[in-house]
C-alpha cells in the first residue's frame, strides 16, 4: 500500500512564502471574548495577506524561490499544480497564471487541486508520480492559501496565509530523495464550506480525534512501519499544523521529540496556512537539515485524509539552500496590524 516511484525521485528545489503582516491572537481574543481565553490561545499570531495578495501572487513568489534553488529552466517543467482552498476565481485556473508568471508556458500541464488542507500535498504525490513514471523530468507542486475564518469563530485565531512550492525531479539531482509515500483517506465531514458561502463550518471537537489524529497517525504509522523505521530514524518531522497543540500531540504519539519537530513547527508564528501548512513546515525542515537526515512529513486535509512522505537529504542541499530566501527570512519580515486593518483588507467591512 506504500507508494514508491519506479525510478528515484526527489525534491530538486523548494521555496516558501509568508506575507509581511501579522495579527496577534490576543487582539482577536480581546475583541470577541474580552480576553477571557487569553491563556489558552492556539497560536501567538497569524500571517495576514496584504490587500494586493492572493493565492496567485503568493504561489508565484514561492514558485520563483523554488526555481532559484532547482537551477532549472522553467520551460523544463511539465506540470505546474496549485493546491488551495482559496483560489481567486471560482472558474479560471490559478495554475495557468502562475505558470505564465514563472515562464513555464506553454508546454506544461497546469491544474488546480482541491482537498481542503491536503490540496498541497496531493500536488506533491502527483508530481512524484509524473517524474517517477518518466513522463517528465520536472514537475512543480504548490500548496498555498489565504484562509478565512468567520469573525469571532475559533478558526479566526489561526486562519492565515502562506505556503510553499516544490520542484520534483530525478533522484540524482535531488536535495532530498523520496523513500516512499502513503495516502490515507476516509469520508469524514469534520470541516466543509458549501458553494457561495464565505466561511467554512467545522465540527468543533469532532475535528480532533476522528479527523486530524486518526488520519495523521494512521498515515504516519503505516509509512514508518512499512519502511521498517521508528521515530529515532528520523532527524526531523513535520505534521499538518492547525494550531500548536495538534502537531505536538501527534508527534508525541508517534514517538517524536520536541526537538525533531521544532524547525518545521511554524504555526505559532504564522498561523495555519491550510493547504500550505505542512508544505511550508517541510521548507523549515529543509532550511535546517543536514546531508543524510531523514525527514517525515504528514499532511492533513478535512473531509478527510493524510499524505505521508519520507525524504532523505543529500549533499546537494547545502549547496542550493542559500540560492533563495529561507522560510525564517519571511517569518522575520513582520509588520503587526490591528484588527481594523485586517477587517478592511480581508473584506469584512460592508462598503456597498
Amino acid at each position, binding site marked *: 500500500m506504500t507508494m514508491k516511484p519506479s525510478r528515484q525521485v526527489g525534491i530538486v528545489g523548494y521555496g516558501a512564502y509568508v506575507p509581511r503582516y501579522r495579527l496577534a491572537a490576543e487582539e482577536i481574543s480581546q475583541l470577541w471574548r474580552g480576553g477571557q481565553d487569553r491563556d489558552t490561545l492556539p497560536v501567538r499570531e497569524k500571517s495576514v495577506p496584504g490587500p494586493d495578495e492572493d493565492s496567485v501572487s503568493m504561489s508565484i513568489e514561492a514558485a520563483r524561490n523554488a526555481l532559484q534553488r532547482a537551477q532549472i529552466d522553467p520551460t523544463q517543467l511539465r506540470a505546474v499544480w496549485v493546491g488551495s482552498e482559496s483560489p481567486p476565481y471560482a472558474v479560471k485556473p490559478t495554475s495557468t497564471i502562475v505558470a505564465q*508568471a514563472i*515562464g513555464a508556458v506553454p508546454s506544461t500541464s497546469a491544474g488546480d487541486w482541491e482537498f481542503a488542507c491536503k490540496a498541497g500535498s496531493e500536488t506533491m504525490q502527483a508530481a512524484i508520480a509524473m517524474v517517477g513514471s518518466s513522463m517528465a523530468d520536472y514537475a512543480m507542486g504548490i500548496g498555498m492559501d489565504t484562509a478565512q475564518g468567520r469573525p469571532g469563530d475559533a478558526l479566526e485565531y489561526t486562519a492565515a496565509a502562506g505556503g510553499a512550492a516544490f520542484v520534483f525531479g530525478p533522484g540524482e539531482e535531488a536535495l532530498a530523495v523520496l523513500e516512499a509515500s502513503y495516502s490515507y483517506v476516509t469520508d469524514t465531514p469534520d470541516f466543509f464550506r458549501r458553494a457561495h458561502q464565505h466561511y467554512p463550518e467545522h465540527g468543533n471537537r469532532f475535528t480532533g480525534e476522528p479527523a486530524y489524529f486518526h488520519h495523521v497517525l494512521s498515515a504516519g504509522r503505516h509509512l514508518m512501519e512499512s519502511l521498517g523505521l521508528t521515530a529515532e530514524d528520523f532527524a526531523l518531522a513535520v505534521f499538518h499544523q492547525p494550531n500548536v497543540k495538534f502537531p505536538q500531540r501527534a508527534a508525541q504519539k508517534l514517538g517524536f521529540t520536541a526537538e525533531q519537530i521544532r524547525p518545521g513547527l511554524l504555526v505559532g508564528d504564522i498561523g495555519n496556512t491550510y493547504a500550505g501548512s505542512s508544505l511550508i513546515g517541510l521548507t523549515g525542515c529543509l532550511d535546517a537539515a543536514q546531508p543524510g537526515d531523514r525527514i517525515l512529513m504528514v499532511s492533513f486535509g478535512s473531509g478527510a485524509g493524510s499524505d505521508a512522505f519520507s525524504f532523505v537529504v543529500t549533499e546537494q542541499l547545502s549547496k542550493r539552500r542559500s540560492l533563495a530566501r529561507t522560510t525564517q527570512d519571511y517569518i522575520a519580515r513582520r*509588520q503587526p496590524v490591528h484588527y481594523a486593518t485586517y477587517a478592511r483588507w480581508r473584506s469584512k467591512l460592508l462598503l456597498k
Partner: protein
Amino acid sequence: MDIARHWRLRDQRYNLQGTVCAGCGHKMFPPRVVCPECRSRKIETFEFSGQGEVYSHTVVYQAPEGFDAYVPYVAALVRLEEGPLISAQLTDVNVDEVAIGLPVEMVTRKLTEQEENGLIVYGYKFRPRF
C-alpha cells in the same frame, strides 16, 4: 473589460519582459520595435532582473477607480538597474518609509479587480529589498 489588452500585456506585467537592441545593447521597458538610440529594428526580448531603486515617489490618497482598496499607497518612479525608468506602485511598505534611493525589487501582485464579476489583473509592483 479590456480582456484583450490585459492578455496582450501579460508577460511585461508579470515578468518585466521588455526588449534589448541587438545593435547597441540599449534596454527598453516597455518593449519597443525600434531602438530610440540607434534606430535599429533588430530588437530582442529581454527580461529585467526586477532590481532597482526609487527615483521619485508620491502618496496617493484619492485613487482612480479600481485602486481604492490600497489607499493610501505609494506611486513611484523606479530606476531599474539595467537603465529604464518605470512607474509602479510600491507594496509591503509603510508610506513614511519610502525615500529617494530606496533599493526595491519587483514582485507580481494583484493590480486591480474589475468589479465582483470581472477580471483580476496581476502585474509588477516593487517592494523594499529585504
